[in-house]
């Protein structure tokens, strides 16, 4: 009996070890690539660990303005502006749906369905309309088109957080003479602050990771890091080391942010349909 349990445990660890290898090897390989010189990434069989690790690829990406840094900054600006707007719009909406039960049945699902909109279905009108408004290749153009995609799950997450919070406390504040708006700002928001942070982080990650809109709706001045990464595909020479460095730089922020909301990852990715 005991022996069977030990065998089972060994099997479990071997299987999980294989899963870990499959999940992590590609990332480790890329990190290793980013420290290689050109001579080392153009060899076969491959050099697994660079013999003399170089920081040149990172220097190139961070200190040559139009190779990497500019686009990392653009991504940060677009994602931050979008996140702020999303919170401003979705807090009152989520509050009304959760507390007044307006549109609890239909409107909330309509808002949720925005998240499922296929980007290719709206990118053509966005392109034509933004061209007319002279908003192609601007921060605001990109910020605006990201709004519908984030609003869906932002409202849903916030409805969940507001419902978890007892109504009595804000009613007590209102009995004490606060207006409802004051009660929301002074009482509700501070208590659901962790929820707001989770929501903001998800919005930021979505904007940071988005590619199709960034590719089609920007040219150079508002280009984000994902669009820049795709632009490295020159047919003649592919600068794998440099690209790897930018890939690593683009992954680090989302990874750190995702770790900080790890507890809510399922809720965020499933748009509130599944809670852990």
């Amino acid at each position, binding site marked *: 009996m005991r022996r069977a349990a030990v065998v089972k445990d060994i099997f479990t*660890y071997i*299987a*999980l070890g294989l*899963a*870990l290898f*499959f*999940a992590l090897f*590609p*990332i480790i*390989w*890329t990190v290793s*690539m980013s420290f290689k010189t050109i001579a080392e990434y*153009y060899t*076969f*069989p*491959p050099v697994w660990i660079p013999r003399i690790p170089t920081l040149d690829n990172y220097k190139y990406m961070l200190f040559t303005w139009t190779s990497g840094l500019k686009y990392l900054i653009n991504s940060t600006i677009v994602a931050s502006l979008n996140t702020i707007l999303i919170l*401003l*719009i*979705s807090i*009152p*909406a989520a509050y*009304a749906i959760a507390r007044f039960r*307006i549109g609890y049945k239909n409107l909330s699902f309509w808002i949720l369905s*925005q998240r*499922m*909109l*296929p*980007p*290719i*279905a709206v*990118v*053509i*009108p*966005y*392109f*034509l*309309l933004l061209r007319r408004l002279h908003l192609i290749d601007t921060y605001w153009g990109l910020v*605006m088109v990201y709004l*519908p995609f984030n*609003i869906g799950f932002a*409202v849903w997450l916030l409805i969940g957080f507001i419902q978890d919070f007892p109504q009595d406390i804000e009613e007590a504040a209102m009995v004490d003479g606060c207006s409802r708006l004051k009660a929301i700002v002074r009482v509700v928001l501070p208590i659901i602050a962790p929820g707001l942070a989770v929501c903001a982080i998800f919005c930021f990650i979505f904007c940071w*990771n988005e*590619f*199709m809109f960034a590719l089609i709706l920007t040219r150079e001045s508002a280009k984000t890091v*994902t669009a820049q*990464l795709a632009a490295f595909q020159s047919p003649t020479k592919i600068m*794998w080391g440099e*690209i790897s460095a930018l890939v690593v730089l*683009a*992954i680090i922020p*989302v*990874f750190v942010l*995702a770790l900080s909301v*790890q507890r809510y990852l*399922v809720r965020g*990715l*499933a*748009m509130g*349909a*599944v809670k852990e």
Partner: protein
Amino acid sequence: MKTKRMLSKYNYLLPVIVLLVAITIFPLLYSLIVSLTNLRLTSMEGPKFVGLKNYYEILFHDKRFWRSLYNTFTIAVPALVLEAIIGLGIALLLNRGIRGKKIITVLLILPVVIPPITTGLIWRMLYHEKYGAINGLLYAIGIKYQITWLSTPGLAKFAVIITDVWQWTPFMMMMILAGLQSIPVECIEAAEIDGANAFQRFIYITLPMLRYTIMVATLLRIMDLIKLFDVIFVLTMGGPGGTTETISIYTYLVSFRAFRMGFGSALSYLVLIITVLFSTYFIKIVRGKGK
């Protein structure tokens, strides 16, 4: 007094409604109109109204559309099945109360959160026939043949599927793990006392109780797979010979490489209709749970 109060309550929803009307409903109506024209950005003449001609062309004469639909589903179905099976397997293993569960879970979910475009680039490097790590690993175990993963028709589709499995299996795993943790221990214990063995407990208790979670996760993945674009954009751009050209890639090429906006809009409307079918079903399930 009362109507005034009602009005102020609706004010809370005003921004979100204005936003959705301006940024989704209006553009969608706009592209519906464009889809009824022959708008081309490369032509000097203005667009002409052509009625349903674009839709007719696509549905009855456009082999490339049907091929892209076929490609989308022959990538989506194997990817989804693999993700569900592997995700379920890993979730069950993690749920056995092993040591180091937390750290293993964190490491496993890493691929889900990174930008899909980086996933594409990472795998493009791995698949590279001359300097890639996969051929390098095969070389290390004695297979000296350099496999051209991304330029052989059958293999390219396989390569795309594996890349999707790499990025999204952890999502399935997380969802199923959350579902497993919500199953009351008493249920399993009661079955154990009644003499059900591990396999029976899994088939008759665990799986039925996971039904909702698996349905939600599957539908979310289907909708994502219909949109599949970023990874293919860097891996194969639809090639070789159109074997990985999904519906999103095809629509993109028509609209933004050939600049046939009218035809592209009609294509995008068909993608929208397919997605709406799945999302209606998704919402129905989530709603049913709420009751």
